[in-house]
């Protein structure tokens, strides 16, 4: 292996500049993609308190499905239901006696904050009373949440790690 002549300061600057350029590009990509695609994880109450400032933002809301409110038209595949507020952090869920108990309490308490969800797509069969729904979508001006993704968990059922069911929207 022959020793080549050192490239000197000027040569090195070229490489450092090139490296910085790539680094800047990667940072730009990360920042712009994060800004454009961040999804805010919220409870129903947090959403209600922030209100219309969130209109248009990509949101992910978790809540307890209220069985009586589920409405579904199989022809148009329009699905609506309401979710009730459940606490977002695990500590309060543990304190409330586990996920199943917390979901039950949320559904039976009429004073809880509620949110109407609209979704177009087949009705998942895990969508039932006291299931945990995690919906991704946007809040409309009318206060109705339009979901394009619907994820359901039934704590009383299969206790596995994989989410029971994922339904992707259009």
């Amino acid at each position, binding site marked *: *292996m022959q020793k*080549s002549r050192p490239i000197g300061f000027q040569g090195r600057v070229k490489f450092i500049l*090139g490296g910085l350029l790539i680094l800047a590009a990667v940072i730009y*990509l990360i920042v712009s993609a994060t800004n454009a695609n961040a999804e805010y994880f919220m409870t129903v109450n947090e959403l209600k308190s922030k209100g219309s400032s969130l209109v248009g933002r990509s949101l992910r809301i978790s809540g307890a499905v209220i069985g009586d409110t589920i409405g579904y038209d199989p022809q148009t595949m329009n699905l609506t239901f309401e979710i009730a507020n459940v606490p977002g952090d695990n500590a309060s869920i543990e304190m409330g006696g586990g996920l199943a108990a917390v979901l039950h309490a949320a559904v039976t308490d009429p004073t809880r904050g509620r949110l109407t969800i609209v979704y177009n797509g087949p009705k998942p069969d895990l969508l039932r009373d006291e299931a945990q729904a995690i919906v991704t979508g946007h809040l409309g001006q009318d206060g109705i949440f339009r979901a394009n993704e619907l994820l359901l968990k039934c704590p009383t*059922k299969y206790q596995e790690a994989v989410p029971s069911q994922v339904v992707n929207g259009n």
Partner: protein
Amino acid sequence: MLAQFGFGVFVLTFILALFSVGAAVFGYFDKSDRWVEAARRAMQLTFPLITLASLTLAYLLVTGHYELQYVYSVTSNDMPFYLKITALWGGQAGSLVLWSWLMSAFASAVTLRKWERDRELLPWVIVVTSVTLAFFLSLTILYENPFARWWQTTGGDFVPHMFAPAGAFPVTPADGQGLNPLLRHPGMIIHPPMLYLGFVAFVIPYAFAIAALVTGRSDDRWIRLTRRWTLVAWLFLSLGLVLGMRWAYDVLGWGGYWAWDPVEISALMPWLTGTAFLHSVMIQEKRGMFKQWNMLLIILTYALVIFGTFLTRSGVLSSVHAFAQSAIGPMFFAFIGITFVISIALLIYRWKDLRAEVEMTSMFSREALFLLNNLLFMGILIVCFWGVIFPLISELVTGQKVTVGPPFYLRANGPLFGALLALMGIAPLSAWGRSTFKTLGRALWKPSIPSAIVPVVLAILGVHNWIALVGFTLVAFVIFVTLFEFWRGVRSRQKKNDENFLVSFWQLAGRNRRRYGGYLIHLSMVVMAIGILGIELYQTTTQKTLAVGEDIQIAGYTLRYDSLAQFPYTDGRIVTRAALSVYRGGKFLSNLYPRYDYYTASGQPMTIAGVRSTLADDLYVVLVNWENVSAAQAPFKVYHNPLVNWLWIGSLMFIFGFLVAAWPQREEETRQGNT
């Protein structure tokens, strides 16, 4: 009885692994070959022992010993035999056992030779592999014991425990819960072991790297010695990822193959550093450069492998409860932290010895382009890592949970993958050392001309998406460059040796397997890129509730709903199967049978798509989960996935290219043996 036996064997193996660490360290500092030899023997003995314990566990799984909590949680009476075997890695405890077993197998294999010429490396290779093995064994013994059995306490609770808690009496359930339905797939036989093979095999080059750092050998012996291990690790990791994609495509029923969820990303991250490593070690072998960088890459790969194992363990990520309750999380973080800090400290200690033998002179030389390739892989790694940790960071800083989904990864990684494609085309044409813009340009113009025609033709054919135009142009460019390279090599051989074209081709690839195998792998990557571009940019979907006899249209196809059948299956699921016929332009093409399986024992449904696959596109029909089924009408979701088959074709080409690149080369071996 058998359970206690299996547990005892694990404890014994753990002690043996610790002994082998101690003996190797002592042997190295005491310059005692006898102690190093003792360490080696102890290390090799772990393999038959873990094999024995694993076979014991397999026997307990197959014979349905539901008194054991692990057996109870992953098997049931109605499961077929092959799934009972795969249940060995169907849960957390079992897959840690599989990890340990593979680790001991690889460590034993690599220490079968006594490494006469590289004697000083041996004790440290033993130390690294034994420490890793001991860590996983300790998890098995202390936290995730597959041999723990059920006890009923005086309070009436059922608890899993190895030994009887005070006042508790043993209980034996009549049947188990059975494996998670998502895992009841033939893919289960091969996908997790492949991924694990890849993960564990990367420990071997890492062990040699650390050995080289400790002993202060700054040459590239550690790379040459572990070249084949690295390749094998990379092959299995790649196959594990592709098989996972295929499994997701077949089983999950959402029309895609890759969802950018943290578990997938955690398996992708070591692949990224591993691929960068695979490229940059060539520069160290050829030019004596990038020594520090290669060390950093393999250290990162090892850390990411352990991190990936930790994340892919079911229960850790999606169920936050399991994470909080299991001591396994902190243990993993501690282990990753400690090994990473020690490795980096060693690297800093040897930093000056690892300086490049030559300096990089030109930005257009092949080594500069390899560096660029590495930086792009690192860029993708940073994007992925950011996506995984971003929710944690934002919650810490702002108190607000924020996540990023697939659009984030696609947008941030897309340009980086595009740049990698371009580089795949340019790099083979560059020269080592002094290559200028001019010389590179001269090599580039020939394959550039046919590539420039591609976007024009595509635009005339009606492709107007600029990402597609750029993507397919780059794909064409890489294909032309690679074919051009083959042609150039064959021509010069032909002229020299007066052979016919095919003989020349065979000889050429045979003599430079690494190079031409590498080109074939590049080709396979761009073929996969065709499939990815097709499905990512042109997937269309539609959904409709159909009555029998009604039809639904998508991308020129007509699907008619013919009938519905519902029947129980032997393994305890109820299958609901729809029959559809596919027409195009009034001509009958085929029948599709999307299914909906309901596992009565676990209450978990599963959706299996009906797929018609051709080279041009896939028609992917899902019978959507529904309630109050009536045969008269059923909801369907249909996906049209253009070109996606090329993803799988590319994967097969990848294996072929790999075999060409890694097939043992007789001449090379003897030459190396003589030096």
